[in-house]
């Protein structure tokens, strides 16, 4: 085999991945690094801009203390290198010559403008895989449009189906538009490496549009199909479904609980339970019996009865007792709920990483649980911590050469 096997207990071979991405693609390198790839974050000499992003650990600003940077750069290494300077570009080409993958999320055309486009890099390294994650992709009339998390959520139509029908389309929190494109990038990079190393294929370029990735993350709402086949635009329905009754989010004694009744049997179970608790015989009415969408005409009255019921219990009570009655109540968790959830605890989800400045904190690294492989456990890198190992150790630059690059602001 032409490439190196993963270490014991590690999923991925130590593929060398040069990570130039900003927030649009940063999760791709993290996912691959967490599972064993050797991801090197290339930062400008002043540091990646997200190092300055609040909140900070202990609310004390500092370039090694941003929660954002710490979260999205676990298991990566860091070198500083100015892509804007000719010396920095040369150095990058030297790194690319022996790399497996380059990932970037600059505006379309930027890499070409600095002489580091795929054609140039491939001439140096024919096996190179390069992936670009951009708001609208590398081609098409919108390719140069300006974007942001909000704009991606809007352009994909994801906002159209989020929120209340009487209110505006709503942004989903936590910059969710930054995940789908980055996840597709990770899976297609794996495909491209498989093609190269198992099938004996060449390197290649991968173009990922965040807009398209986001559209495929709500496929089951069928926005285009609904327009073609019935001339209808799908829209947001608020916290409760208009078709499946009850399905949605309801207040509980201590917060919110989500619930859904899909089968006739589930309705039997729920209505019986509601009757036991509230004494309201009306809920057992034959008109309300049936499956999936049979209760739609009675939405308002049933919703009122359900709320009268759910507000008598805590979310945890509904969650667990619901399961005993073959009913699906799912808690609406906050981040503190996640950190104390017994299921996540039991399934190797949290990994404690000790960072010299940020201290020991629990990180959610366990996307998969496996007896054979587990995530790597290095915290996010200090700015430029691997300069020496890469520039001197691997590229063989001498101390005077490094000093000269430093004085020119290239590293």
């Amino acid at each position, binding site marked *: *085999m032409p*490439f190196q096997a*993963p270490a014991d207990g590690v*999923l991925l071979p130590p593929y060398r991945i040069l990570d130039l991405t900003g927030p649009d693609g940063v999760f791709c390198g993290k996912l*691959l690094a967490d599972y064993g790839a050797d991801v090197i974050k290339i930062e400008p000499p002043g540091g990646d801009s997200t190092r300055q992003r609040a909140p900070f650990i202990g*609310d004390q600003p500092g370039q090694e203390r*941003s*929660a954002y940077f*710490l*979260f999205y750069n676990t298991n990566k290494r860091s070198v500083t290198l100015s892509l804007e300077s000719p010396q920095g570009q040369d150095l990058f080409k030297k790194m690319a010559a022996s790399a497996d993958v380059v990932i970037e999320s600059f505006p379309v055309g930027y890499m070409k403008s600095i002489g580091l486009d795929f054609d140039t890099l491939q001439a140096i390294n024919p096996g190179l895989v390069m992936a670009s994650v951009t708001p609208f992709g590398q*081609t098409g009339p919108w390719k140069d*449009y*300006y*974007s942001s998390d909000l*704009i991606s959520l*809007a*352009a994909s*139509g994801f906002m*159209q*189906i*989020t*929120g209340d029908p009487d209110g505006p389309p*709503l*942004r989903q*929190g*936590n910059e969710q538009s930054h995940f789908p494109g980055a*996840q*597709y990038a990770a*899976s*297609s990079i*794996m*495909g491209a490496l498989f*093609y190269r190393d198992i099938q*004996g*294929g060449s*390197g*290649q370029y991968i173009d*990922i549009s965040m807009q*398209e990735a986001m559209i495929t993350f*709500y*496929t*089951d709402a069928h*926005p*285009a199909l609904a*327009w*073609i086949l019935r001339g209808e635009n799908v*829209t947001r329905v608020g916290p409760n479904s208009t078709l499946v009754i009850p399905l949605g*989010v309801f207040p509980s004694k201590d917060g919110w609980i989500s619930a859904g009744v*899909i089968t006739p049997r589930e309705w039997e179970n729920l209505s019986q339970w509601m009757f036991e608790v509230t004494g309201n015989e009306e809920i057992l009415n034959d008109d309300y019996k049936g499956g999936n969408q049979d209760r739609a005409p009675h939405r308002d009255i049933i919703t009122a009865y359900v709320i009268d019921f759910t507000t008598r219990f805590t979310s945890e009570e509904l969650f667990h007792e619901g399961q005993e009655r073959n009913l699906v109540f799912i808690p*609406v*968790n*906050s981040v*503190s709920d996640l950190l104390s959830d017994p299921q*996540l605890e*039991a399934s190797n*989800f949290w990994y404690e990483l000790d960072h010299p400045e940020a201290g020991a904190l629990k990180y*959610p690294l*366990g996307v*998969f649980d496996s007896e054979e*492989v587990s995530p790597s456990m290095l915290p996010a890198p200090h700015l430029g911590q691997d300069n020496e190992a890469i520039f001197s150790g691997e590229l063989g630059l001498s101390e005077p050469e490094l000093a000269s690059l430093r004085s020119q602001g290239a590293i």
Partner: protein
Amino acid sequence: MVDAKKPLSGIRILELGPYVALPLTGRILASMGAEVIKVETNKVLDEMNFIPAWSRGGGQPEFQRGKKRITIDVRTPGGLEVFKELVKVSDVFMTNFRRNILDRWGIDFPDLRKLRQDIILMWQTGLGGIGPYYTYKSYGILVQHMGGVSLMSGEEGEPPATINSSYSDYHTGVFQPVAIMGALMRRALTGQPATMESSIFKSGAVTAGPAILDYQSNGRMPPRIGNRDRFSAPHGVYQCQGDDRWCAIAVQTPEHWEAFCRAIGSPDWCSEAVFSTLESRLANQDRLDELVGEWTATQTAEDAMTKLQEAGVPASLVSQGQDIHESEHLKAREFYQPSPFFLAERDRPAYEWETKEGISATNPPRLSESPLDFGHYSNVGGDNDYVFKEILGMSQSEIDRLTENQSLY
């Protein structure tokens, strides 16, 4: 000529399970050239064959294109035997049934290893395969609320923002190919197979992000700020002409602000001191949003977007289905393709269903040398002959016998 070889040529994947996440994983792997065999039964059809209800199956190609679809009732002795023969010739088995159900059917992971020692097993669960919730039933559209992000969306005090889609399923669906390809590579290099378990719950919770660290360190819950942003103003969606038409605008930098003011005709209020810096705009957002809304109310969403983009301001209409279908941009990228689908009927077996024309999205990544296959769309059981005869070498009479007693049905 494009190389006929695909990333996953020669890899065979056995898929058993309904809904969104697992089938999406199968479709992605099929688009990379794996032979994905999807096991279904006419006796208990995946509800996804009927979605959306108004089209009776128009949504199914999105999840099943490119697969070989066969019918086996694994609950019958004959069906289970054939299923086990398929395990012997597959590289990966993936399922999303709960452990208690697999046990009842006699499908047990250690036992599968006896049939094929190096098979890779991907077990997708709702809430978790081990741990206290392992028998718990769940629905993907509700599990979106479990991962923490619902309470980071919308406004303070309002109900959690709900997405009208089974959103968190997709995280799992796109994570799993990474794990499966990684495991296949690892097996090729070390000879070692792997068993991996995923859950919709965990896939969502992984994306809870920096708030996890902020809470541990500073005890702070992420604020719910609706469409606003900590670092940008104006920032939100603004109503335009027409019914439920909106334009999203994100003014992030001083340059964006200048360009924004120019693009809307430099009204007097743009030069007011209260809007001159990001800090002052953030402090006066209610009035700012009102003024921006007065401008967008005079525009169509398309015009507002175009004017702002041409001036250099991040902006987009909030796309509706019609916009997505008619988008010149998506057409130029050939994002949607025509796809047939089968009009599902509950009281007739799938092979009697009629065909209708619809569409399906392509898989987003555009690979230059080994482009992803859009793939053929088979009906339920449409590949029985190929799989049972050519892969398993079964005789016609054996297939007929097992079809008649509904083992392969």
